[in-house]
């Protein structure tokens, strides 16, 4: 009897946290309402990052004759990616690809969410919640690239490029890193998408900017951001939403998610101040657009590290993010003369790669379970190079194909009049 009471005590005491493991040991997954609540909340937060966060961030940066166009790019991409996610992309990224599983999943297995019990679990949350949470990542990633090609691209090629890219770049890389592919096997660390989201989007954005060519006003007659307040609002929404992006990537409610939020916030705040400080020092004026660009740089850079580092490291990552991304934004546009119009590569590409590298050295073993050092750093570098390479090569091909199909640029006259009226038939402001 005593023994029994003892067992009972253990069972009860190990409840909550413990019970789940216990049951999992018995091969029976159990839904946790708290975990599920957090991932559903995170899903809403990440969608909010794109709609309207990112849209406003970009919309405020362009000139007032292209604001509708920038918003339209983001939301149309969001809608199209959502539908494509259901039509095979989710399956392509997250199912077992059989012989090719190292590189890709099966496009048909869960096409249309087929062959999935409506209440099937994925860990302690329903698989449908996992599906929609991951969908919001697939939505924002191609939308990030909008910043590279605004004010001159054809709307039809925006849709075509993004749609093809989802299957050729995003889904495969997701499979490599999070879907049981070869980079996962190698033990690469990418908590919330430094590789999957930011490196892919950043590198591809640079490719598109180069192939598309500069705006005719670039670099001397480009108009300043037409509405810094919109930019700031968008950046703030991205910041808040990023709690879901990084915190939600723990796929559970608890200390891992909590620590991800802490380091995300610290890195964002630090990078903001760093960028502001650099501008203040260099131009004599601390600007709002610069500060919030630093915010996004900090957020992108902490992303791969967010579940693996402690707050001190987040501070270091924040300083590095602000300084390095600032440096690259100047380099790309002024030295290389590439019209990556809204600095997608400098902020997301460089940030994502930088963070992926730094986590190799800064990972806290207690938190993330991985020992930092050269061993891990090598794996991280392999990850960066391979993901960047795929993004580069595939995007060149995609863009060339789309160019052949429908062309890339609007006419010079249309660009001059603004895409709002010429492409979408609407004006941004009737005040």
């Amino acid at each position, binding site marked *: 009897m005593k023994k029994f009471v003892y067992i009972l005590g253990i069972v009860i005491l190990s409840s909550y946290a413990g019970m789940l493991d216990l049951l999992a040991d018995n091969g029976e997954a159990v839904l946790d309402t708290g975990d599920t609540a957090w991932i559903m909340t995170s899903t809403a937060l990440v969608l909010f990052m794109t709609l309207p966060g990112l849209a406003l961030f970009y919309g405020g940066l362009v000139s007032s004759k292209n604001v509708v166009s920038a918003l339209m790019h983001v939301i149309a991409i969001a809608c199209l990616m959502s539908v494509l996610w259901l039509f095979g992309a989710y399956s392509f990224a997250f199912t077992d690809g059989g012989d090719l599983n190292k590189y890709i999943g099966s496009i048909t297995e869960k096409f249309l969410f087929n062959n999935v019990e409506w209440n099937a679990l994925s860990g302690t949350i329903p698989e449908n919640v996992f599906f929609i949470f991951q969908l919001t990542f697939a939505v924002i990633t191609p939308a990030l690239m909008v910043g590279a090609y605004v004010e001159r691209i054809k709307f039809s090629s925006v849709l075509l490029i993004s749609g093809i890219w989802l299957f050729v770049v995003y889904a495969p890389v997701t499979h490599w890193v999070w879907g049981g592919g070869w980079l996962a096997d190698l033990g690469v660390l990418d908590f919330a998408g430094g590789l999957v989201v930011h490196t892919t989007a950043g590198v591809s954005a640079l490719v598109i900017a180069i192939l598309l060519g500069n705006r005719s006003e670039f670099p*001397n007659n*480009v*108009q300043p951001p037409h509405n810094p307040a919109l930019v700031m609002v968008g950046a703030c929404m991205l910041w808040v939403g990023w709690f879901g992006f990084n915190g939600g990537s723990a796929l559970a409610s608890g200390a891992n998610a909590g620590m991800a939020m802490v380091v995300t916030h610290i890195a964002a705040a630090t990078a903001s101040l760093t960028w502001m400080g650099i501008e203040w020092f260099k131009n004599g004026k601390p*600007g709002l*657009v*610069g500060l919030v660009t630093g915010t996004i740089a900090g957020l992108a850079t902490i992303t791969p590290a967010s579940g693996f580092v402690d707050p001190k490291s987040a501070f270091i990552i924040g300083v590095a993010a602000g300084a390095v991304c*600032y440096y690259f934004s*100047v380099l790309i546009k*002024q030295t290389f003369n590439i019209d990556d119009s809204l600095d997608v590569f400098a902020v997301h590409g460089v940030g994502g790669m930088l963070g992926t590298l730094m986590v190799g050295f800064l990972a806290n073993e207690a938190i993330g379970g991985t020992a930092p050092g050269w061993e891990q750093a090598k794996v991280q570098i392999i990850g960066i190079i391979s993901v960047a390479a795929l993004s580069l090569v595939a995007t060149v091909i995609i863009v060339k194909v789309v160019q052949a199909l429908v062309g890339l640029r609007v006419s010079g006259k249309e660009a001059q009049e603004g895409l709002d009226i010429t492409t979408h038939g609407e004006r941004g402001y009737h005040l």
Partner: protein
Amino acid sequence: MKLIIAIIKTFKLDEVQTALNKIGVEGMTVTEVRGFGRQKGHKEVYRGSEYAVKYLPKIKIEVVIDKKNEEKVIKAIKDSANTGEIGDGKIFSVSIDKAIRIRTGEKGTKAI
């Protein structure tokens, strides 16, 4: 009658208006314009890139007055809009053939 057109610095509007009121000018029309001149525009720097804003915001005042008040009005504007710094603006005077008050149909100096 004369139409006095003055291009002034934006923040001088209040003072100019007060000065005109003082000498009995009650009506005027104001437009926000952009000026190019000796005073050069400025640069705005975002993310390390410079953006040239070539124009400067200015205020254009149009006021129609009796010919005999021309000098007085010009002086009032000149004195109140002056800062002594480049970009203070200009005053032009044009002859008006007719003036009509829409409400009453009054003509000439009675209309202004």
